[in-house]
């Protein structure tokens, strides 16, 4: 009965075996290369850990005025005011609302940490030129939008 098997079938079996062998080889190769790519750079920015460093805001004193004069913070946000005195006279950053008081030498730079703050307006002055040297930190209520801010 076995001899009765057509030679065609043998051919098919060889072809089939070859096909399977090649396919599995391809799969192994493909799998290997796939594995390689997985070992390479891990997906980096899927969940970014929050940056806990406070935001740094540059405030320039020039001609006895603050620039910018208004600083807007998110409620609860902590920032560093990086105050640059470009005048040739000493200035004192003072705010009894922010509870900060710091001398900035002529041409000097001083860092002042501010916040976290509740919503509100916190005035600050350059005490030695208080008539012009005025600014404020604004902490808007949540929901306070840009339109209201521009008004």
């Amino acid at each position, binding site marked *: 009965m076995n001899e009765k098997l057509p030679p065609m079938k043998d051919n098919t079996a060889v072809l089939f075996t070859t096909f399977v062998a090649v396919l599995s080889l391809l799969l192994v190769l493909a799998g290997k290369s796939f594995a390689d790519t997985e070992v390479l750079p891990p997906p980096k920015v899927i969940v970014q850990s929050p940056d806990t460093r406070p935001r740094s805001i540059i405030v320039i004193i020039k001609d006895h005025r603050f620039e910018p004069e208004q600083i807007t913070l998110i409620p609860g946000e902590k920032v560093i005011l990086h105050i640059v005195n470009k005048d040739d006279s000493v200035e004192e950053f003072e705010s*009894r609302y922010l*509870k900060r008081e*710091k001398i900035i030498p002529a041409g*000097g730079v001083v*860092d002042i*940490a501010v916040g976290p703050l509740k919503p509100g307006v916190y005035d600050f002055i350059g005490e*030695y030129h208080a*008539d012009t040297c005025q600014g404020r930190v604004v902490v808007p209520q949540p929901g306070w939008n840009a339109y209201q801010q521009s008004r």
Partner: protein
Amino acid sequence: MFAAAIVVFREVLEAALVVCVILAAVRGVTGAFRMIFGGMGLGVLGSMAVALFTEGLASAFAGNGQEIFAAVILFTVVALLTWHIVWMQKHGREMVHDMHKIGAEVREGKRPIIVLAGVVALAVMREGSEVVLFLEGLIQSNHAPGVLAGFFLGLAGGVACGAILYWGFLKLPVAQMFRLTNVLLALIASGMAAKGAGKLIQAGYLPSLLDPVWDSSAALPEDGVIGQFLSALVGYMATPSAMQLIFYGVCLSLISALVLWHKRKEAPART
């Protein structure tokens, strides 16, 4: 002119009030005034030196030099005042009864007047350096003479307030006056401890815990006339943080505890 006057007045007032309470506290002691005014002179010189080194101070300790410097001065003053108050508790009675004896003790160097002279020097130095910087700026920027006049008006105003307070103390009977000045010195010390804590919070060395605990700046603003007086004399704060209140409370209870302890220790000996 008035803007300048107000700036200077504010800076001078606190030191002037502290000096006047101290002058009242040493009233009648031979040679005490000379030492206190000597302390004041040292303080003025010191404030000029501090003003001179502002730049170095500003950049010291990673930019926290000013805060650390102020905190060290404040806590030193707190320690000196505490020492004085406890000493007064031990010797105040004798002082009231026998001024002549006290005078002799000063000459022998037993009395802690030098401690109070140190307090005056430090208080004047701390407040004075800002006045010196302000004056320096005024001279530098060639302001109208009116502004300079304002400077001296503010200076005179601060000193006058201190003088009025001192005059008020003189009206009191001696024993009562010493009791009052001692209580005031304890409150001044506590207020300075709270201010020192505020400096450390500003520099980020201490947490504020809760800020502010209350806000009475609408009813009694800290930079108003009454607020300024209360701030200098009893350490009033319109918007204190929890940490500052803790420092105030701990300082006041510590001084009270020390005074009571000495009173109790003394009581059996007297009966």
